[in-house]
């Protein structure tokens, strides 16, 4: 299967805490992307990390990529109630396949 898994599948934290979500995958990738989905809404692109990059930052988001372990993590620092959403990692498969393959997603709840 080309699809990986987000881990944990659900996370509940207090406002101000950091949230870390992990993603594993099985095949070689061109890049890996993280998306957020608020309940009943579309997916919002958060950040893209290429296969030759190891870490990337965007505001309160930090993404790491370890291609040797085929894993990525998304860290949200100083979480807010508004960060409550589902988070998905999506792999762009190496080899010319013009599609993103999404994981199952992870539900983050930030309690005020």
């Amino acid at each position, binding site marked *: 299967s080309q*699809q990986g898994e987000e881990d944990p599948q659900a996370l509940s934290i207090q406002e101000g805490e950091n949230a870390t979500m992990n993603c594993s995958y099985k095949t070689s990738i*061109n*890049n890996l*992307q993280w*998306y957020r989905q608020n309940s009943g*809404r*579309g*997916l*919002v*692109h958060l950040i*893209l990390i*290429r296969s030759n990059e190891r870490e990337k930052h965007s505001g309160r988001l930090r993404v790491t990529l370890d291609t040797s372990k085929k894993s990525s993590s998304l860290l949200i620092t100083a979480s807010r109630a508004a960060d409550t959403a589902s988070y*998905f990692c*999506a792999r*762009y498969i190496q080899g010319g*396949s*013009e*599609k*993103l*393959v*999404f*994981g*199952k*997603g992870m539900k983050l709840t930030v309690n005020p």
Partner: protein
Amino acid sequence: EPEVTQTPSHQVTQMGQEVILRCVPISNHLYFYWYRQILGQKVEFLVSFYNNEISEKSEIFDDQFSVERPDGSNFTLKIRSTKLEDSAMYFCASNRQGSNYGYTFGSGTRLTVV
């Protein structure tokens, strides 16, 4: 900020009926996609479209499904004879230049087949 627009937001249809889901991608984007998400489950790829033709499709995208870009702005997904299991959120997405860019998704169409 440019948006991908999908209509309708919710569609209820009888089993066996045809439905057309409409999308207006971002104007300078070149790649277009349909995904679906059955309630509470993973986001599944259906089809990608580039240069006025399908570039890739999944096993889900069988002969009941078709896509069109009839007028250079709209991008439609047609399901010819809906089944109960087609009930899902359908998301359209567009992308500027393929693999090195994130996708912009629409808000989705919730399709309910009864």
